[in-house]
């Protein structure tokens, strides 16, 4: 896949006077600076900073009569709470901070593709793989914490003891492939949408990309929802006790 550094990274390279090196570039590609090569990290960091700033702003201005921003955030938190309560049986609300953090991070990353001169951090596999790995570590840790180490791993053995040698490797494979599917889904959707919008922009820069960007608005929201929902479902599968 061709690599296009975002305009912001190119501009920052010029402003900061960073030198471009061939060893930083891709094979058979033009030399790149650090910022252009690790463009996705710049965008992901920007998205995380934006999310933190906005939430800090909301938190600082908490009022009894909420303003528009506070209302939006109250809606988001209520929605997440409802989703968690629907999926995780007992006192699932302690996972709300983590799930909300992931949701906001992914949301802002997705939407940075719609701002000119930026590219979405999630259109690089490294960012989504990182998110998926964090989620993977989190639900395994909490599964082991809730159920106990042995009991957690024993529930991969399957219902019948003599099937365990067959089922255990399969279940472990399924567990590991969750990382792949969880990260590739987000990455592919956002990257594909971004590439199509870019091609439309190349065809005709005025008006033609607008429908695609509108679709991108929708897809970004849907993919955030799906990522969060799957996080909740994996978490629920890991921490729920079998009765």
């Amino acid at each position: 896949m061709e690599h296009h550094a975002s305009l912001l990274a190119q501009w920052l390279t010029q402003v900061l006077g960073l030198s471009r090196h061939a060893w930083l570039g891709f094979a058979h590609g033009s030399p790149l600076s650090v910022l252009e090569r690790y463009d996705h990290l710049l965008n992901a960091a920007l998205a995380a900073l934006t999310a933190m700033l906005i939430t800090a702003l909301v938190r600082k201005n908490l009022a009894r009569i909420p303003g528009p921003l506070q209302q939006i955030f109250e809606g988001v938190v209520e929605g997440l709470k409802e989703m968690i309560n629907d999926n995780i049986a007992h006192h699932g609300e302690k996972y709300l901070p983590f799930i909300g953090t992931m949701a906001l991070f992914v949301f802002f990353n997705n939407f940075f593709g719609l701002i000119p001169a930026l590219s979405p951090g999630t259109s690089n596999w490294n960012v989504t793989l990182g998110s998926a790995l964090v989620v993977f570590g989190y639900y395994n840790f909490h599964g082991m914490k809730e159920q106990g180490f042995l009991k957690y791993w024993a529930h991969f053995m399957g219902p019948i003891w003599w099937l365990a040698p067959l089922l255990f490797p399969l279940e472990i494979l399924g567990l590991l492939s969750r990382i792949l599917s969880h990260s590739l889904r987000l990455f592919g959707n956002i990257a594909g949408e971004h590439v199509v919008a870019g091609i439309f922009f190349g065809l005709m820069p005025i008006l033609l990309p607008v429908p695609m960007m509108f679709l991108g608005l929708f897809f970004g929201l849907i993919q955030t929802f799906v990522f969060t929902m799957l996080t909740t479902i994996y978490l629920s599968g890991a921490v729920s006790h079998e009765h």
Partner: protein
Amino acid sequence: MKKFLTTAFLFTLAAVAFAQGAPVVQKSLFEGQYVAHLSLAIAAAGCGLGQGKAVMAACEGVARNPQAAGNIRTTMIIGLALIEALVIYVLVAAFAIK
């Protein structure tokens, strides 16, 4: 089915004809970007059929029982995302093939 096969065959011929016109190294039909594009088309077709069936069933469900619209919508979106993921894998593979 016969019509479909004929059309598919004609398109294959067209691909060969275009490839001969272009000043690139002649490639077999079953390597490189041809495979990427063709597999993406096949995956998209299958995904379209599958998602269409899923949305159809969800619409019927909502029409019969509008009270359950919220639950059905959530389940449908999750299902659609899982179906779509299969095409996304092919898309990623298509990106990976040069």
